[in-house]
């Protein structure tokens, strides 16, 4: 883990968080540098999602400091897709939100690369859970956020989908990005500097 500030994407110091009288984590230090893929391991209810939300800035209900040095992309356990809209329309909204210029052709390419050929114009409510997860992850390919916070990215994905996520993370890591993934299944990202964090239950 590099200490040079220009390579540091996120730095969290002595994070403590309590929910309903239970201490989820205490005095947790975490640094994510360029090229790091951090696996966040822990049993159900151990505070993986809460930690990700603290790091993303979605909750202020914790003690400690979080310094984010780059834009982030957060994939929560709620998919972040409008069921009434097609994958293409959902991605177009994300592109506008991120301020990225991607044409319809570009977005279709991203969907094709996630194994969703021919589904670009099908409303998301007609897609399977795994396909919806693929749409949600497709936006990472153009979001141009150096730091990814992924909450259970492999949920409801088949083997091919899991392999896609591994490739996505690997390419991102090689391009100088960083990621932290809450997961119970091993990510097995090839050649990644994976760091497992055991949280106290």
């Amino acid at each position, binding site marked *: 883990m590099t200490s040079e500030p220009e390579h540091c994407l996120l730095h969290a110091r002595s994070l403590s968080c309590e929910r309903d009288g239970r201490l989820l984590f205490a005095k947790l230090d975490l640094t994510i540098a360029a090229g790091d893929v951090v696996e966040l391991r822990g049993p159900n209810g151990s505070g993986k999602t809460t930690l990700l939300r603290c790091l993303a*800035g979605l*909750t202020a*209900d914790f003690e400690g400091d979080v310094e984010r040095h780059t834009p982030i992309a957060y994939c*929560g356990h709620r998919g*972040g897709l409008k069921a009434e*809209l097609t994958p293409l*329309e959902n991605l177009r*909204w994300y592109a506008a939100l991120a301020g990225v*210029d991607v044409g319809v052709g570009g977005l279709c390419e991203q969907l094709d690369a996630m194994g969703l050929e021919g589904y670009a114009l099908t409303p998301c409510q007609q897609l399977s859970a795994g396909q919806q997860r693929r749409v949600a992850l497709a936006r990472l390919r153009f979001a*141009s956020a150096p730091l990814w916070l992924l909450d259970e990215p492999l949920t409801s994905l088949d083997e091919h989908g899991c392999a896609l996520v591994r490739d996505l993370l690997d390419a991102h890591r090689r391009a100088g990005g960083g990621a932290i993934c809450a997961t119970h299944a091993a990510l097995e990202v090839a050649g990644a500097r994976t760091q497992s964090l055991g949280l106290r239950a």
Partner: protein
Amino acid sequence: MSEIAIAEPRIGRLLTAQIRRDLTVAFRSPGEMINPLVFYLIAVTLFPFGVGPGVERNAAIAAGVLWVLALLATLLALDALFRRDYDDGTLEQLALHADPLFVGVLAKVLAHWLVTGLPLTVFAPLGALMLHLDPAAMPTLVVTLLLGTPILSVIGSVGAALTVGLRRGAALLALIVLPLYIPVLILGAGAVTARLDGLDPTPQIVWLAALLAFALTSAPFAAAQGLRVGLE
């Protein structure tokens, strides 16, 4: 790191993309969209049954009834303003990426008004006919609703934002928002009544316009802040 280009988010693009998305969603589930309008028209038809068939009796209460019902119909649709997005996770994405967030909120409110407040305004003359409102007061009614319903939507967005994370938020929403609606109701219904009494409704209309300008420039900030609280 240098090969990862970070484009500047543009406010105008955010505004149009959000409005377009919300309108598309609304038109794909039209049942939800026309629900407030149907409530409005049915409730208007109930009043003559309740107060009796007399033309003068109905005409006397028409302005107040039409305004109160527009207010309640807006309230009916308000709970869904952020809740659907909260449930599917797009609201937290908006809160994370919309820069600044109040632009995203403003876009959502405008889209919401286009599918609720505007139809209410357009169909108000129909309700006014049913209640025998003096046709001379019709333009005043439409103008006050045109200025007033966006105020209702944008003020309501603050309450909707604060209650978005609560499971039974709708009741609390009404408690928060209805007292804030009173000035709008007084001015809106007052303008129509003034017109019926042969007075000049301009002061009330100008006050409504001033309230609209104030609400549009301040409430989205409060709602954005409320969303950050509500999302926790």
